[in-house]
């Protein structure tokens, strides 16, 4: 199924891995120039699929944090949908296959990796972590458009209840890992100016607006609050935090350059800028 693998060196310390499963997934690997001190970070792009921008902005952080940073690219040709996990679209399985391959290559040697996503990538990141929490250590969610809430009263993918078509598989699967999902550091980031309810890239539906709010900023606040509440109810540390990046819009480069997003996400807690 996913035994066709190629490895091409494209620059010093940077490699591209392609893993073929149901669809092809490529990834850029950013190696620190010095010794590896921290577990790897997987960074997921948004719907612009601009993995290069993520690689460019995370490259200095690989050195600074002493960690391998893995930047997959979900090409439109193979992945018309990658933000959500459905029976037709399985970006989670592609990521698992990529991770398995990187383990065989000794790129990933830790039990779990940190996971970052921006916009659509943050949507996938939290859904992947809910489905496969055993693989994820710290979770960093940058400006997700909307979230799958750990709430069985709402249909999947808004919540964990049966979908509107009556399929209860995804909700069950995520619910079974929920305790493990909550038991980690979950950090949300959103630009202070990411508050446009009319952004055409933002998913708007009455039930979604009612449950999560009408802007990414509000949705991030509500999600962080919901997760903190659930963490407390589950008796685990309420680690969920929200960093609002002042003056930043819904633009990855802007958040990275002016909001310190990549440094926040890539540097382990003890090495944070502030």
């Amino acid at each position, binding site marked *: 199924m996913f035994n066709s693998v190629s490895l091409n060196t494209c620059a010093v310390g940077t490699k591209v891995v392609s893993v073929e499963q149901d669809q092809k997934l490529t990834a850029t690997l950013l190696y620190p120039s010095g010794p590896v001190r921290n577990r790897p970070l997987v960074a997921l792009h948004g719907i612009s699929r601009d993995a290069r921008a993520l690689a460019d902005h995370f490259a200095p952080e690989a050195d600074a944090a002493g960690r391998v940073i893995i930047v997959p690219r979900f090409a439109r040709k193979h992945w018309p949908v990658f933000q959500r996990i459905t029976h037709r679209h399985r970006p*989670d*399985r592609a990521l*698992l*296959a990529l*991770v*398995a391959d990187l*383990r065989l290559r000794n790129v990933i040697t830790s039990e779990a990796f940190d996971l970052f996503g921006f916009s659509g990538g943050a949507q996938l990141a939290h859904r992947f972590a809910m*489905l*496969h929490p*055993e*693989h994820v250590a710290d979770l960093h969610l940058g400006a997700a458009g909307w979230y799958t809430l750990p709430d069985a009263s709402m249909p999947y993918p808004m919540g964990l209840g049966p979908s509107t078509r009556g399929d209860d*598989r*995804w909700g*069950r*699967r995520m619910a*079974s*890992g929920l305790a*493990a999902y909550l038991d980690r550091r979950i950090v949300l980031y959103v630009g202070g100016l990411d508050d446009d309810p009319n952004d055409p890239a933002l998913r708007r539906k009455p039930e979604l607006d009612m449950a999560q709010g009408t802007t990414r900023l509000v949705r991030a606040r509500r999600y962080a609050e919901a997760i903190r509440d659930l963490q407390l109810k589950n008796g685990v540390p309420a680690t969920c935090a929200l960093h609002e990046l002042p003056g930043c819009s819904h633009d990855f480069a802007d958040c990275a350059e002016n909001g310190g997003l990549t440094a926040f996400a890539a540097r382990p807690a003890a090495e944070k800028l502030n």
Partner: protein
Amino acid sequence: MKAIMHPPVDMFKTAKWAFSTRRVNRMDAVRMNDQFENAQAGDLILGRVSEIGQHRNIQLTSGRRSLLYPGDLVVLACGARYAPDQFEGVAKINPAGADMLAGGGCIGEMRLRNERIRPATKILPLGRIMAKDGTPLNLERYALPKARIPTALPVIVVFGTAMNSGKTLATARLAYGMRRAGLKVAALKGTGTGAFGDYNEYADTGVHYVADFTDAGMVTTYQEPLDRIKTGVETLLSSAERAGCDIAVMEIADGLYQRETAELLNDTWFRTRIGGLVFACGDAVAASGGVTELKRLGYRPDVLTGILSCSPMAAAEARAATGVRVVNKSDLADPSEAMMLARKAFVPCALAAE
């Protein structure tokens, strides 16, 4: 001991050794005797094919089938067999002519035969194979080491209504799904008749470790004492644990009413040892009957699967009748579904019916 009629070593070299003998060091086979009345389950028997019947092939230790011809020399293990769609037989060797009870390498005496199949392939026993010191070579001698301390490896068991209800496929697909989720998985067969079909199907999934009861020294588990079967199960789990596995999926052969299967289900140690139960069945009525019987024994399956799951209508009937989810082979092979079952198994004693 009676005289040896023929220098046997060349015969041992020429013979086709059955899959069930795969752990045997053939260098140990140097003598024979014809005291067949003392033959025990697991003893190695050299025989000559005298008449081709139901089994036209023998499963070799190499993992391939070999056509059988009259006159072929074969090495099989004496054993009983329980297979409602083929034979029932006992671990007894008739010097005048024995029965090949299974293509994986089981020789004994047929007692009952399914009327839809041919009579057993006949084997003329030539001798019980002995070591240099005169002790009979028995599979037990080559078994994996027994567990010294109780194992803690989480295990999900796969039961079914009968032969061919889909247990092996369910075992393989669930093991595959867990492997895809990043776990080191053991695919094990706890009871049944030694054969490479199931073993190879497990191995093809790429899981970390594969073994069956023949690795624990039994050619079949039929008519073996429960304690020996439990020791075999624990031996397999111990071996998988030593191999670094995170979890095991173990198939239990035949249906719930089969003697050894029923004994295992009734056993307190077994009940507390398993962390998940998958039940394979063919239709909704079978599902309902199986779930009811399992409930009587104090179990509730986590999921139903098997032939039943091929039909959405049958699956819906079964779910409505039992309240248990039905999953198909694709679901089991899905890392997210497999992990859901695995997480439950990581919690000990999670299975007891409420």
